[in-house]
């Protein structure tokens, strides 16, 4: 219980630090990401903060490394999770914002071995939802009048995708092993996810002014 109290206190402190304007919010976000991954599905190095001298106030949190930023996080029980998040602190009064994010789970090494992908774009460029889910599957053969569009190409609108939500999905429904028992990670993820969602921008499920005539899809 004492250990859990300590983890919860740390989770609250890091969550609060993410919402304090200034440059330390980037490192706090990175620390928070690494902490929840360490408690749950991460196997080895989990997340890195990536900066660039030519773009101040902007950073990435990625699952990869310097030599391969695109490398996914290896999960304890096999499979992998791509985590790629773009952050800035140019919003109102310098608060931290997620600009874009990608969470993709795969069970193999091949390009088509992905199972699902959550994407978020603060400023989408086409008619698809700013926050959406794609699934690498197919509608069952017996279903009448099956959509012409392949299932992986359908962008299902969702609320703001969270890393916590992805982790819960992996552990609760996809059999991914967790490093800590549920009695530890569930309360911690509840704290961090609530803190994020209480402050997160919630996008519409589609654009309000997209010109269909420019659509090539």
């Amino acid at each position, binding site marked *: 219980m004492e250990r859990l109290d300590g983890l919860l206190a740390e989770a609250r402190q890091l969550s609060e630090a993410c919402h304090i304007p*200034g*440059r*330390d919010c*980037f*490192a706090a976000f*990175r*620390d928070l990401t690494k902490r929840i991954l360490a408690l749950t599905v991460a196997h080895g*190095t989990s*997340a*890195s*903060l*990536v*900066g*660039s*001298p*030519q*773009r*101040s106030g*902007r950073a*990435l949190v*990625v699952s990869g*490394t*310097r030599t391969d*930023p*695109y490398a996914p996080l290896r999960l304890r029980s096999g499979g992998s999770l*791509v985590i*790629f*998040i*773009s952050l*800035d602190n140019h919003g109102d009064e310098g608060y931290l914002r997620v*600009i*874009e*994010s*990608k969470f*993709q789970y795969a069970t193999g090494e091949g*390009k088509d071995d992905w199972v699902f*992908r959550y*994407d978020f*774009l603060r400023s989408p*460029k*086409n008619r698809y939802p700013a926050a*959406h889910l*794609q699934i690498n599957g197919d509608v069952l053969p017996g279903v009448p009048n099956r959509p012409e569009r392949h299932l992986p*190409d359908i*962008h299902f609108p969702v609320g703001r995708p969270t890393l916590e939500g992805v982790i819960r999905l992996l552990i609760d429904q996809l059999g991914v092993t967790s490093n800590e028992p549920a009695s530890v990670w569930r309360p911690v993820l509840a704290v961090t996810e609530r803190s994020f969602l209480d402050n997160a921008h919630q996008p519409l499920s589609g654009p309000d002014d*997209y010109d269909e005539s*420019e*659509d*090539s*899809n």
Partner: protein
Amino acid sequence: MRSRRFWTRTCVQVPGTERPCILVGNAGEAEDVKYRILKQETTGSDFVLSRDEVVHFIELKARAARNMSGSQLLHAFRSGRLENAGEVAEALIMADLLPDDDPLLSGGAA
């Protein structure tokens, strides 16, 4: 000054001088005081990418996934013509490390 979580060693040039100097401290210090940043190194797993490195990684994903240049990929995305953008989202997100007036974003050469 070394913090527990994240510190940066930055090679900078003070405006009006010729000799570069080294700052050891939080990542924001060098930019906050308007030094010209020559090189940066960070602790732990964190890292800093130069423009050439950012462009390299964008090109890598664009060529491997869509057989097009990084510039073509970014231009297609910004004009709303990029299909299945999520497949190459890493390259699009990587481009967020470039300034808005970077030639790669305006359709110029990498």
